[in-house]
């Protein structure tokens, strides 16, 4: 890795670590670092251990893994769609997940497991449908975007119809889910998220070099010996997975996938090592957003999706204003 991205990597690693620690220490029951160490190594009162190990620790871990997964997913979509606005949200994957959740809410209300499963399945299904519809002797980025926009509109109209036809309480529960939240996350969620995300990230690491080369154009990549359609299919599959799993567990947290790759690239100012930094950026964003959502607006506990969207939007806008002034 080149020098500057490496520095950024270390910096981000430190940042992630410190936010993790503060998230673990802060809360209704504040702890000092020493207390935290005691609890983690197995000593200390059982009640406190419950708070830290059963509640706070899984929450922090989920934020790290899901943030990394979403960031990488966004990076893959932006690379394949060759568009800085590429994100799973634009293509309608989140809308698809929401449709699944809405369907389950109507049929089996308050079944959390069914909702999680439905979100996972419908997001994956949406991805598959978009891919198949966009296939015509191959995939071009433009076709993917267009079909994605169409599918997204269809799904949103379905969602809109359900939202206006059900009771207010159902609609609000659905609305809360769709804002994204890390409340209620436990070790079960970690057991689901961790292996899926780690395996998917390994897959991405193997395909990363090919993904970079494909950015230069399909013809050139083909001439360099890359099987473009196969690589693209693999990457899209992994990207869909890396979005569907976090969405199933914490709801659609928009903007991490869009913004994390952009931040990582601008910080490092070079395309080498970007994927590592993107993962860390995503983790950091989600950690900070969750921290703010929990502690910054007391006594209200906001859904984390609200924070990421606002923060992400502000960041993008400031970038644009700066760009506008420069040009």
């Amino acid at each position: 890795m080149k020098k500057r991205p490496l520095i950024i990597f270390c910096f981000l690693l430190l940042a992630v670590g410190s936010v993790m620690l503060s998230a673990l220490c802060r809360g209704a029951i504040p702890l000092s670092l020493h207390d935290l160490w005691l609890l983690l190594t197995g000593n200390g009162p059982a009640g406190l251990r419950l708070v830290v190990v059963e509640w706070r620790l899984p929450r922090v871990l989920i934020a790290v893994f899901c943030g990394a997964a979403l960031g990488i997913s966004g990076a893959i979509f932006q690379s394949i769609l060759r568009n800085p606005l590429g994100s799973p949200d634009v293509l309608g994957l989140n809308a698809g997940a929401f449709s699944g959740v809405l369907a389950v809410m109507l049929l089996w209300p308050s079944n959390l497991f069914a909702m999680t499963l439905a979100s996972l399945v419908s997001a994956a299904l949406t991805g598959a449908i978009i891919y198949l519809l966009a296939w015509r002797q191959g995939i071009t980025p433009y076709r993917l975007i267009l079909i994605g926009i169409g599918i997204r509109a269809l799904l949103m109209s379905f969602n809109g119809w359900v939202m206006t036809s059900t009771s207010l309480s159902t609609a609000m529960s659905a609305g809360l889910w769709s804002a994204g939240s890390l409340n209620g996350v436990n070790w079960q969620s970690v057991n689901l998220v961790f292996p899926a995300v780690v395996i998917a990230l390994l897959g991405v690491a193997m395909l990363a070099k090919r993904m970079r080369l494909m950015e230069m154009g399909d013809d050139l990549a083909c001439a360099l010996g890359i099987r473009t359609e196969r690589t693209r299919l693999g990457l899209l599959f992994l990207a869909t997975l890396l979005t569907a799993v976090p969405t199933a567990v914490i709801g659609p947290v928009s903007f991490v996938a869009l913004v994390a790759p952009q931040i990582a690239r601008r910080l490092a100012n070079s395309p080498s090592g970007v994927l590592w930094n993107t993962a860390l950026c995503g983790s950091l964003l989600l950690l900070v957003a969750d921290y703010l959502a929990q502690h910054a607006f007391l006594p209200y506990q906001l859904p984390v999706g609200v924070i990421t969207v606002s923060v992400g939007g502000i960041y993008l806008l400031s970038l644009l204003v700066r760009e506008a002034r420069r040009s």
Partner: protein
Amino acid sequence: MVSLLNGAKTISLSESWSSLSLWHTCHSENCDIIRYSRLPRTLAGLVAGCALGLAGALMQSLTRNPLADPGLLGVNSGASFVTVVGLSFWGTLSFWQSFSLAFLGALLAAVVVAITGAGRGGRLNPIRLTLAGVSLAAILEGLTSGISLLNPDIYDHLRFWQTGSLDVRQLTIFTLLGPVVAIATLCTLTLSRSLNAISMGEDLARTLGTRVGLVQLCGLLLIALLSACATALTGPIAFIGLVAPHLARGLLGSDHRYFLPGTVLITPAVLLLADIIGRSIAPGEIRVSIITALIGAPVLIILVRHRIGRGMS
């Protein structure tokens, strides 16, 4: 016309006509239905359709992007946000209050996005415009979510408003909106020749004597005004601003002098048709935005699959 006649209760043609012409004297129940439910609905379809279609056509011409939609300027999120803020301060809102708030929010959002997208010197950068619209929409949506999820009544109002519908029950609003939209339409039509020039490229247009910066500025303001009018009236209606201009262009060619007036006619027709379908296929109403998406999306997908290769790849 068909929109006027159609509905949950059948009313004959002559009765409808008499209820319209004998405005002040007719007081039967049927007259009321025509006057206060069907007529405003039809007028809303006409006004919103015209406004959205023109805004969409303008947007596509100015950004030279066939995918542009007036919603890109953030009008929907602007309107939602200001409405939600208003609701949290004042509890319930009268029709006029909520309309003005929505209009204000939509207009402000569009103006902010337009300024950011235009950059220094007024050179319009389509990518920057789109990104600005997306980011402003995101911020406002986040804030709107935050406020509305804390208050069930507001959320209830919001979830209906966010799926656009022609269910307008006020007639007086049209005495204001009608002229405004008509004037805006006329202004847009006068831009036709300049838009023809711009569609060939900004530099080329300049050499042909078009004042590109001025046209872009006026165009953006008109888009903001038209989409604010439409969104404040009906709520966000999906796809119509995107697809209707393409229809008009397909039928009437790319000359703005012909297809802009065509858009003015076609978009309301499509919108009213969608509304009629929405009212006919289910008891109660399926809001028009749902229908437009249900029709528009498959059309877009079919178009993409079969017309690709003609300069779209």
